[in-house]
């Protein structure tokens, strides 16, 4: 049974009564007033604890100058009147949001006697980030480990004494919703005031490089007595190194500003990261280390194992090479295991073509036969034969996703994204873009900043979507030896990512200047993927591919077949020509051939002929149409005896350089129609969709032109 008084502060005079769970109520007999700031992450149960301690009646207002809600209430304990202020829920105490500045300024400016940080102990590591920043501020701190009932059920055990030592703060396990441990929490608050802990500025060590720079800045703060006294010189120096806008704006001497700029420059140069990132890394390192020492149970052990794996996977030097090697392995496997299966499906379609052709007398001309054999089997069949390769790729990606590695991929890219003025959150839609640009562009809604969002939307089509896969799978084996298959495919993906990064950097430097907000990226523990889960994910994606082949691609193949077959030249025109010449003449005479011929001068410098030109136009509807169109073009007019596959026909008509340039152009050029429409919907303007269309096409033309022309010079 816990007893204390509740005093509301509605008008600063009236003492009201309230009840905390099973506690009885007494008149206020406080001897000393203690001001307590209640901090915590959003959803940590902060308000529940605050309400439980102060009763149902609180005073609600706004912090001076800002419309952030300020809740105050009070209670009494062991003869002390305890005034509690519920700070806004924040994940950290940087100066990126109003809530964070309000929380931080309140703790510093209002002479808080004790800060109580409500920690969601079921999500300990993330919640301790705020606690670490409070430790840095060297304020008298009590950590209330909330939701310990959930933790107990999981079988987690905290070594409270050890953690208390690490964080130089009292730690009290509580269950806010049941009122459990609240008495002990109040005891800890009073004890912290009556018997303050010895302050220790060096709880978190930021690494030798940062510590050296802190030591250089600290003496220069001596001239700024008032600030130093208020914030503490180490904390102030740290915030200046982190380029904290709120602290930087406090009017410092030129000498100090120059010294800070020099230190920031030095650290960035030496470590390759901005001090803000270095310090955040160290904070996470401190938390991770503390938890490793003082938290144990089956779940945490899994996290610990994950942490061990992450030490290698997320290593500063190894992370990107590991990511690259893994993706290379996936692509290599796609070709190695997929090609024999692909051969089987190809044989099946060849048999089907021969069977349907056999229904008509030998040499007979039939529009229906041509529609089925050249249009449908040549077009749709050309796309369906790649299903084994695509299923294998989706299988491998499903394993990477289900195991938790893909979340790390976003984390790995976070560092790179920061350098281009975006944050890791932008890489998540980009990863989705490897599947399809449409959901990826919709996924950018998680980005709060409009400039970041527009930048991400505009570069997403550069990520190699699933629709480009059949193009790669068709062309790579046609033009490159088996040992290079995986590497060329990997190269296509890397070119896409590198160009996306380059374009994003360019956009952030020109059209979309402005700051980005950092965020905490969570890493789920690694898991062994289940075969069932992986198969379900693989099948879901493969089914969508088949569905598309059976609907939209079927329709477009029929239209393209008609455009490639009609109008037909009269017999006099074809008289005396060889079979090959007659086929070329008929093609050039058709609608598609005429369009291709008209645009041939424009695409010739890229190494493309009129056939590729027409296929590229068709690819605007959906990228796979390129493969369907090439299938139609090369099966029309083909002699029945020809047993060459599409790959063999392409290899005999184009060089490896041309093959590579086709893939490059398909990768970079204007996205499909659905992507442009979704771009308009998400940006609210056709102008952005037009900008995306023209910009990417121009970039594709430029890059392909340079590669083809330079490549031609080198090869000849």
């Amino acid at each position: 049974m816990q007893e204390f008084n509740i005093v509301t502060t509605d008008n600063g005079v009236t003492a009201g009564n309230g009840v905390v769970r099973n506690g009885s109520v007494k008149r206020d007999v406080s001897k000393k007033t203690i001001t307590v700031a209640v901090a915590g992450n959003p959803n940590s149960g902060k308000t529940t604890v605050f309400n439980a301690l102060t009763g149902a009646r609180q005073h609600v207002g706004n912090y001076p100058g800002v419309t952030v809600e300020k809740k105050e209430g009070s209670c009494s304990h062991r003869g002390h009147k305890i005034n509690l202020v519920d700070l806004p829920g924040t994940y950290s105490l940087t100066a990126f949001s109003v809530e964070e500045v309000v929380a931080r300024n309140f703790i510093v400016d209002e002479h808080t006697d004790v800060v109580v940080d409500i920690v969601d102990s079921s999500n300990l590591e993330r919640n301790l980030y705020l606690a670490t920043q409070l430790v840095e501020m060297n304020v008298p701190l009590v950590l209330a480990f909330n939701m310990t009932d959930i933790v107990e059920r999981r079988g987690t055990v905290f070594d409270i004494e050890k953690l208390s030592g690490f964080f130089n703060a009292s730690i009290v396990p509580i269950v806010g919703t049941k009122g459990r441990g609240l008495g002990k929490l109040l005891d800890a608050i009073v004890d912290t005031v009556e018997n303050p802990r010895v302050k220790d500025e060096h709880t978190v060590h930021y690494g030798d490089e940062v510590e050296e720079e802190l030591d250089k800045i600290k003496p220069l703060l001596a001239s700024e007595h008032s600030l130093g006294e208020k914030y503490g010189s180490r904390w102030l120096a740290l915030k200046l190194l982190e380029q904290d806008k709120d602290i930087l704006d406090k009017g410092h001497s030129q000498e100090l500003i120059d010294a800070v700029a020099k230190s920031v420059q030095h650290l960035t140069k030496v470590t390759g990261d901005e001090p803000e990132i270095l310090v955040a890394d160290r904070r996470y390192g401190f938390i991770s280390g503390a938890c490793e020492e003082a938290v144990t149970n089956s779940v945490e052990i899994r996290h610990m194992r994950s942490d061990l794996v992450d030490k290698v996977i997320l290593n500063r030097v190894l992370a990107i090479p590991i990511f690259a090697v893994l993706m290379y392995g996936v692509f290599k496997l796609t070709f190695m295991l997929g090609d024999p299966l692909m051969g089987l499906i190809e044989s099946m379609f060849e048999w089907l073509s021969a069977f349907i052709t056999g229904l008509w007398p030998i040499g007979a001309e039939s529009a229906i036969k041509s529609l089925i054999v050249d249009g449908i089997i040549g077009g749709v069949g050309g796309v369906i034969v790649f299903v084994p390769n695509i299923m294998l790729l989706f299988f491998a990606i499903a394993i990477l996703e289900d195991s938790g590695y893909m979340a790390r991929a976003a984390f790995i890219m976070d560092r790179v994204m920061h350098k281009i003025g975006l944050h890791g959150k932008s890489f998540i839609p980009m990863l989705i873009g490897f599947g399809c640009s449409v959901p990826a562009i919709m996924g950018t809604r998680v980005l709060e900043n409009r400039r970041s969002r527009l930048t991400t939307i505009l570069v997403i089509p550069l990520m190699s979507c699933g629709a480009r896969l059949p193009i790669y799978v068709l062309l790579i084996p046609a033009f490159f030896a088996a040992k290079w298959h995986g590497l060329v495919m990997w190269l296509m993906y890397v070119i896409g990512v590198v160009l996306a990064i380059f374009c994003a950097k360019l956009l952030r430097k020109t059209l979309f200047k402005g700051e980005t907000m950092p965020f905490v990226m969570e890493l789920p523990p690694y898991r062994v993927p289940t075969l069932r889960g992986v198969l379900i994910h693989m099948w879901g994606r493969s089914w969508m591919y088949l569905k598309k082949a059976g609907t939209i691609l079927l329709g477009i193949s029929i239209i393209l077949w008609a455009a490639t077959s009609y109008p037909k030249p009269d017999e006099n025109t074809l008289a005396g020509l060889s079979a090959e010449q007659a086929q070329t003449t008929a093609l050039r005479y058709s609608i598609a051939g005429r369009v291709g011929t008209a645009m041939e001068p424009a695409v010739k410098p890229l190494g493309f002929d009129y056939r590729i030109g027409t296929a590229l136009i068709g690819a605007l509807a959906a990228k796979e149409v390129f493969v369907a169109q090439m299938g139609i073009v090369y099966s029309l007019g083909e002699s029945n005896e020809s047993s060459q596959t599409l790959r063999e026909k392409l290899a005999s008509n184009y060089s490896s350089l041309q093959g590579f340039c086709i893939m490059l152009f398909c990768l970079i050029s204007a996205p499909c129609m659905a992507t442009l429409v979704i771009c308009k919907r998400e940006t609210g303007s056709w102008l952005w969709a037009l900008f995306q269309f023209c910009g990417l096409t121009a970039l594709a033309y430029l890059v392909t032109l340079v590669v083809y022309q330079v490549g031609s010079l080198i090869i000849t």
Partner: protein
Amino acid sequence: METALVIAIVAAVVIWISWSAYKVVAGKSSGCSCTGSCNKGDCAELSESNDKK
């Protein structure tokens, strides 16, 4: 007869593709050429839930 049948098939397909394209442009369909990376398979669902936000 055969040519008439082919013309009818192509005309029907042109109408169907045009109608599908119109639906995408008018925002009545997501037009998602999704291969499932969103783990939902069909983007209409994703689009709808995002619109509600």
